[in-house]
């Protein structure tokens, strides 16, 4: 990873100093071992602060919505980010001509919670990845452990570790070894109705309506979200379970057939609602009912909710 980190700095420097890009979006490091965050560099001299480490999890493509679209922007994309980028492209929210994409192969990123759970976080200064291992650095000494043990759940089921779109690929493609991603959904599907209802009610009742799941989502790219509209006010602001249900049903429904399954919503939810399971329920059903469809990857296929076949399965009448 060290090497990739260096290449990343070089191409960032190159694209800014050559004028190919006016801004580079990459990652920087904060004081804590787990703090890697999006960075926006316009000065070639600032590219030295860019990093690539096991915590560079933020999807950078979503920022293209906010940045003034006239600027030519260079951007680093992981596999999941690339899918999100493609979805935004499909939604007409980014201009392919105005971005320079550097692809980063990524076989997984580290979930700080797993490091903490393993009791490795106390006094931890830095975590580095070497081959398949993580090296944990402390004031005194270091420890090693298999990297995959600490990956985010979303990374373990990742099916696109290598970007599907880029102008330049940085580093070697990594192998793809996803675990079954619908396991949780399938399990929930078989639990009794009432149990399922209380499961979701419990999770939804924790929701604080911070909208982080929406704001981080590359498929949520509306200029103004219906949840924010004052007229008509679809979503009330009361602390009322039915409204939270409305929010989560509608959010998932709006990204149905568009969700690239990057898992960011679930990752950043501050209260731990398993949002990805909602999205994956739709993905699973769409795959079963209308044929396999990978949003962000299957660019030659029409989005499942924007097309139909005359012999589609019928809506059972609830009997």
């Amino acid at each position, binding site marked *: 990873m060290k090497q990739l980190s260096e290449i990343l700095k070089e191409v960032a420097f190159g694209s800014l100093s050559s004028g190919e890009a006016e801004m580079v979006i990459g990652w920087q490091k904060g004081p804590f071992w787990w703090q890697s965050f999006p960075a926006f560099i316009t000065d070639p001299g600032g590219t030295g602060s860019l990093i690539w480490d096991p915590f560079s999890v933020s999807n950078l493509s979503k920022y293209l919505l906010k940045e003034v*679209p006239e600027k030519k922007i260079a951007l680093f994309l992981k596999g999941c980010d690339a899918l999100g980028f493609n979805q935004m492209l499909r939604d007409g929210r980014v201009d392919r001509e105005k971005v320079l994409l550097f692809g980063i192969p990524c076989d997984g990123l580290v979930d700080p919670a797993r490091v903490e759970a393993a009791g490795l976080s106390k006094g931890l200064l830095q975590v580095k990845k070497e081959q398949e291992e993580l090296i944990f650095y402390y004031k005194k000494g270091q420890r090693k452990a298999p990297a995959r043990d600490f990956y985010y759940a979303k990374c373990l089921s990742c099916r696109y570790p290598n970007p599907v779109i880029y102008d330049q690929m940085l580093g070697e493609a990594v192998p793809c070894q996803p675990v079954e991603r619908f396991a949780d959904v399938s399990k929930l599907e078989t639990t009794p109705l009432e149990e399922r209802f209380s499961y979701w009610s419990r999770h939804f009742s924790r929701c604080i309506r911070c909208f982080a799941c929406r704001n981080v989502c590359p498929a949520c*790219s*509306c*200029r103004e979200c219906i949840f924010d*509209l004052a007229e008509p006010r*679809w979503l009330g602001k009361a602390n009322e379970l039915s409204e939270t249900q409305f929010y989560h049903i509608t959010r998932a429904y709006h990204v149905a057939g568009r969700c690239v399954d990057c898992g960011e919503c679930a990752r950043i939810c501050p209260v731990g609602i398993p949002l990805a399971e909602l999205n994956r329920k739709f993905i699973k059903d769409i795959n079963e009912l209308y044929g396999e469809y990978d949003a962000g990857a299957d660019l030659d296929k029409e989005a499942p909710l*924007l097309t139909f076949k005359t012999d589609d399965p019928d809506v059972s009448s609830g009997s």
Partner: protein
Amino acid sequence: MRRIGVFICWCGTNIANTVNIEGVTEAAGKMPSVIYADNYKYMCSEIGQSMIKEAIIKEKLDRVVVAACSPRMHELTFFKTAAAAGLNPYLVEIANIREHCSWVHKDKQEATGKAIALIRTAVAKAARNKELWATQIPVECRALVIGGGIGGIQAALDIADAGFEVDLVERTPSIGGRMAQLDKTFPTLDCSACILTPKMVEVASHHNITLYTFSEVEKVDGFVGNFEATIRKKARSIDLEKCTGCGICWEKCPSRVKSEFDEALVMRKAVYVPFPQAVPNVPVIDRASCRRFTREKCGICRKACPAGAVNYDQEDEVLQKKYGAIVVATGFDILDLDDFGEFSYGKHPDVLTSLEFERLVNSSGPTGGRLLRPSDQSPPKNVVFIQCVGSRDKSRGKPYCSKICCMYSAKHAILLREKYPEAQAYVFYIDIRTAGKDFEEFHRRAVEEYGALYLKGSVGKVFPDGDKLLVKGVDSLSGHAVEIEADMVVLAAAIKAKSDAPQLARLLGISTDTHSFFTEAHPKLRPVEAHTAGIFLAGACQGPKDIPETVSQASGAAAKAIILLSKDNLLSNPCVSEVNESLCTGCLSCIKVCPYGAVAEKTIEEKIHGKALKRRVAEVNEALCQGCGSCTVSCRPGAVNLKGFTNEQIMAEVDAICL
């Protein structure tokens, strides 16, 4: 605060028997924004209507709710009532308390409760109704007819006779189409050319018709009343003005290629007129086979032409034309028989398609009308006609009936016997379908007077056997497998849509069925209209058809076009979608779900933080939109809304109906 008036109809006893009118009136009077509530025995009667009108004026009502029968019944009546009192009709809402209430419920208390709920719902919606106005769309009073077969010819003539300008675009060098290839026509045995050529000439000479042969429609933009088409006039390499049609050029031309018009049974020259009665009777140079163009040698025709009409440098001409209406009459093709190896078609020269047979009996055809076997130019004695080759065949062909084969095969059996009284026709059929005026009689004549032997059953295989063809089939009526030694086998190959029909459909924004035939707007009630307003269908491009049907559909399509063109302006349905550009994200999902191509993308410029930025948004063409509202649901931020059924209105209805 709105000023809503509610008018409750008794409908004689129809409503009043099951619904407590007084109770409902009282409850309605207390609903939010309702300032007036009254009832009457027959609201739709003159007295009832004047009651409403008076109340609108006296009480200064700004919304009206009529609780009566189904809106599908009297909505228009009450719209007019409101309009007469100066209220925009779209401020009226109907609560259906008859069909959906008093007639389906027995218990008076229940029905009364439901009637109140329905009225409350209508009141809630009405409060959010807005004035709507039908917009006027000017109509370009010209028509475009695509396809110069009998359908296109008839439509063009009818529209032109009604006094409108028509452009008729035909892809091949001459108009005439399939009908020009035929010899006789069933069931009267009229000579096809004799009845067609006068019409072709009429088209050419009609002062309202401009003929574009050897031309294609490349692009169609716009919408009903305002289409703009791009027409490519391909280079003919012959000056239409100078050419006299003397024929020296094609006499001298050294290049020979298979004649499309004669179904490849003979050769034509590289410079050619497809058939002697062609309109215009001016040759074209087929550049793909002309030596001048393929090898940059030759030039004989130019030297030979006494009129100096040959022009090798002619270029394609691209025209932009505006039209109010379009008639599509692009005809059909014959199914490719590659998958039907058992008939030896293509392997034995005496196995023919019906269209080839047609050319062989045609006096302008390759044999001058003497029916001769292509193999040895001898007259055939036994001819086997096989029906349903690819028709009614789900596995290798088309599941539909090609409709005309039964009749033309009977015709062929008759023509055979007329040419050779000793010859025997055998017809293998699955069912005989003779639904048409004089069709059954014609078929029976073939059997009874012309001695054609009809065998109900299929042919399993045709074996070339010396100079004969051994046909093995079955007569399922007698239960016998049969063998016939034939001199000629004629296959009634299925009719199919033109292979490029889907492209044309895309270009025009109309739809096709699973077999690529253009789809009509309604199979029963709007059979000559396409789904896209202002586009009409004629002939076999919509499905297999015979000549009389094609002609009547063409006249029907022409009549529809004339109705459209005779208006200066079109009034559009005001309940159409609209886009709130500030909310529109430009994902254009709406375009994907619109069945009418009524949504398009446009670029707007706006200032964001002091910078002028361009972005794409959706735009609804009100002339094309039919108001289904599918786009509104595909729009996640709710930027697309359907006037008359807005999100706000329906949400208010939901809130009110759930109380």
